[in-house]
């Protein structure tokens, strides 16, 4: 009886609560309130019921088949026992203990399909964006629409795919669609009513500082902001990555560095003003978007305490920057085989090797267009002080077309293929940038799944072969695996309800939740009266 009372008490109190800055800023606990679990992008949870010792006892608890889903990319968020997950133009609220649907919201008249990476939560509203750029706010209890606000025109090529990030009442969204010639942007909208508060373009306007790094195509420069970023409340700074310049593979028509594409931008949360930028791949010719998580870690680098931002980039290098000033601190090789650059100089600029640009006949370059890593969720674990990154050892052909560039026509100035390759999960030491251990995977390099790690010393990751695996976070030793039966494109999270820890992940078509085995108690048929 005590157990029941306590449990019930918890859920009701929870129901009256509202998500506040303090809740999100303290990071994951029972709940998982942002895409990456923490503002700093750690995908880390202090939960420790599941440990390296008992992970062998993990069993599936429930599965929810998302109607019509194919290729889910959504990482769930959790608040007070409810799991919120998105599919294309839709959101599902699921009882996180039973896997039963609470409500769903769908906007089938959206002007575009495409992937969606997840929802956000603030106060008592759940937020997500439609593929045609509406920010939608829903009552978290019932799914009732509070407001929807269009923030960009899909007719101009901009779409929306990422989970919004909410910080101090501002919902931050970004633009996708950089492969067809658009001007990328990051925008803040009011969490109360969707009113636009600021908009920062990722490519300068003609005449603005940085415009000298472009030619005539500056109006269509790309630099999409298709992945959410991270946030440092103390510095009140957002860290957001930008995508490739356009056209992707024909760079002759855009001579110069093409600022601020393939970059990390540090923006003031209140004004959207750019505090600093760091461009990983100036004048990119390989479609190496910088979309990979800027992970905020305080650590010692070269004997000095630093507020660092760590960034594993598609171009093959693993960077550490000072996140206060943007100063370049260090770059190391993320993958073994890099053929386009011989390294990174002491200012952080790559030193390109000759003959590594796309050609009409095709040029074989490593890494492939998919990159040495990508947007897969990385995890930083303060217990092991390691960063876990899914890397891809893969090369590919890059082709250049000399056709006249045509914006908004799905024109990319060439093309690329990728061949063979292997996904390797790597544990990196933020202090040195060096590998501590690695976990190679079987597969074809087709996964987009990521990781979550816990105070229990367990690292969960999807693998390249459709399994969810549990590894010992200290040494990468395999502890447990489960065949999800589908290619994985979404990252796992962990949460707790009623004192029990769960691990949830979306497969291609369904959401699964796992926990430690316990004998099931038989349920008496309920006493139900219908009158």
């Amino acid at each position, binding site marked *: 009886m005590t157990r029941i009372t306590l449990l019930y008490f918890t859920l009701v109190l929870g129901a*009256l609560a509202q998500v506040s800055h303090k809740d999100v800023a303290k990071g994951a606990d029972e709940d998982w309130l942002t895409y990456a679990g923490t503002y700093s992008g750690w995908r880390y949870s202090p939960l420790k019921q599941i440990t390296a010792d008992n992970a062998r006892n993990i069993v599936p608890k429930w599965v929810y088949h998302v109607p019509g889903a194919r290729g889910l990319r959504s990482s769930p968020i959790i608040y007070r026992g409810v799991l919120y997950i998105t599919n294309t133009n839709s959101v599902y609220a699921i*009882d996180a*203990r*039973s896997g039963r649907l609470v409500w769903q919201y769908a906007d089938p008249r959206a002007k575009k399909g495409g992937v969606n990476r997840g929802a956000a939560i603030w106060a008592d509203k759940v937020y997500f964006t439609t593929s045609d750029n509406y920010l939608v706010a829903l009552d978290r*209890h*019932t799914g009732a629409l509070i407001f929807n606000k269009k923030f960009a025109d899909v007719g101009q090529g901009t779409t929306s795919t990422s989970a919004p990030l909410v910080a101090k009442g501002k919902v931050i969204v970004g633009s996708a669609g950089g492969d067809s010639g658009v001007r990328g942007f990051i925008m803040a909208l009011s969490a109360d009513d969707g009113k636009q508060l600021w908009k920062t373009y990722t490519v300068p306007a003609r005449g603005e500082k940085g415009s000298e790094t472009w030619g005539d195509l500056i109006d269509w420069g790309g630099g999409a902001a298709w992945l959410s970023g991270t946030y440092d409340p103390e510095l009140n700074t957002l860290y957001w990555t930008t995508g490739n310049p356009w056209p992707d593979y024909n760079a002759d028509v855009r001579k110069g560095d093409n600022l601020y594409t393939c970059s990390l931008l540090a923006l003031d949360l209140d004004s959207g003003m750019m505090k600093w930028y760091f461009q990983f791949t100036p004048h990119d010719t390989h479609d190496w978007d910088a979309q990979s998580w800027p992970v905020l870690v305080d650590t010692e680098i070269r004997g000095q305490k630093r507020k660092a931002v760590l960034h594993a980039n598609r171009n093959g290098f693993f960077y550490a920057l000072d996140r206060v000033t943007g100063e370049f601190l260090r770059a190391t090789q993320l993958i073994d085989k890099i053929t386009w650059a011989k390294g990174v100089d002491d200012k952080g600029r790559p030193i390109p090797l000759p003959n590594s640009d796309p050609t009409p006949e095709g040029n074989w370059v490593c890494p492939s267009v998919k990159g040495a890593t990508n947007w897969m969720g990385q995890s930083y674990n303060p217990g092991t002080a390691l960063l876990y990154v899914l890397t891809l050892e893969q090369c590919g052909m890059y082709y250049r077309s000399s056709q006249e560039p045509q914006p908004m026509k799905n024109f990319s100035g060439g093309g690329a293929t990728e061949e063979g390759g292997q996904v390797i999960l790597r544990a990196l030491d933020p202090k040195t940038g060096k590998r501590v251990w690695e976990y190679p995977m079987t597969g074809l390099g087709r996964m987009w799944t990521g990781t979550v790690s816990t105070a229990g010393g367990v690292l969960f990751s999807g693998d390249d072969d459709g399994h969810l695996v549990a590894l010992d976070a200290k040494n990468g030793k395999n502890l447990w695996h489960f065949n999800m039966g589908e290619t994985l494109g979404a990252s796992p999270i962990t949460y707790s309800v009623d004192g029990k820890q769960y691990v949830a992940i979306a497969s291609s078509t369904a959401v699964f939740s796992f926990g430690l085995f316990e004998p099931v108690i038989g*349920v008496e048929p*309920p006493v139900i009266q219908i009158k």
Partner: protein
Amino acid sequence: MSVADFLWENNRAKISPRPEYTRSSMRTFAAALLTASLLAQHGRYLSDSKHPSIGNPEAIAAGTKLFMGSCAGCHGPDGGGGARGPNLVRRSLWHPLSDDAIFQVIRKGVPGTDMPPTKLSDEQTWNLVAFIHALTGPASTNPVPGDPASGRAVYWGAKAGCSNCHAIRGQGGRMGPDLSNVGGSRPLAVIREAIVEPAKDLYYLGNEAATVTLKNGQILQGVAKNRSNYSLQLVDTKGILHLIQMNDVKHLTLSASTSMPTDYATRLSKDELRDLLAYLAAQDIRADEREGMRERKASKQ
């Protein structure tokens, strides 16, 4: 397809046939929808569809005649279905067809069924599509009689009391289904049916009125969003969600009928009902786009 729609379809067989008065009221309504009031609203609402006949009152009127002559025999005069043809209005809720697809079905028929191919001209066929769209398409994409501004007053007023239970864009009660997009997702006939005959079917399964007594003595009242032998997801009268394990439940009472008042056909005057429908028909989460489309079309003319 929503769960509610799916359940509705699967429970349809269990529902007793409509009483005759329902049919005649629907017929009256269909007639009203088809003639004078449609023509009076010319140019007022435009649809998402590209074909000019969609939402065009003259095309709809011409399509009406064709429908009554050739289609109503099987599909019923209100599109509500008959012995040989399916209910077009309901079907559109769980399996909407594009206007082009409806065009093709009329043209080619459905092989293996009683639905024959036709030899209508393109124009006639589009007139028929325009009518079917008016009957089965989202209310917000069709001409609707009544005054939305007066309807707003009815909706938020004490006499109808709609807002006590239903919210629109965050305002109003949370116990009943959210109506922010009711015009953008439901044909007018279905909205009307839900108001004047809410008890007629189980359309709102997933919105059962529930009272639950927990083993710890607490009593909760609200709406069961979902339930099984093992768990219950309940939104209480304050709009707060409760996740309950059936192991913790002593007793659960569900209402066999809808919590929606069943007297709107008499409580509201004819004009009030018509205006309320016009207001609800305009509730569309993408209303701003039709606004834009109207402007673009106007500027071209």
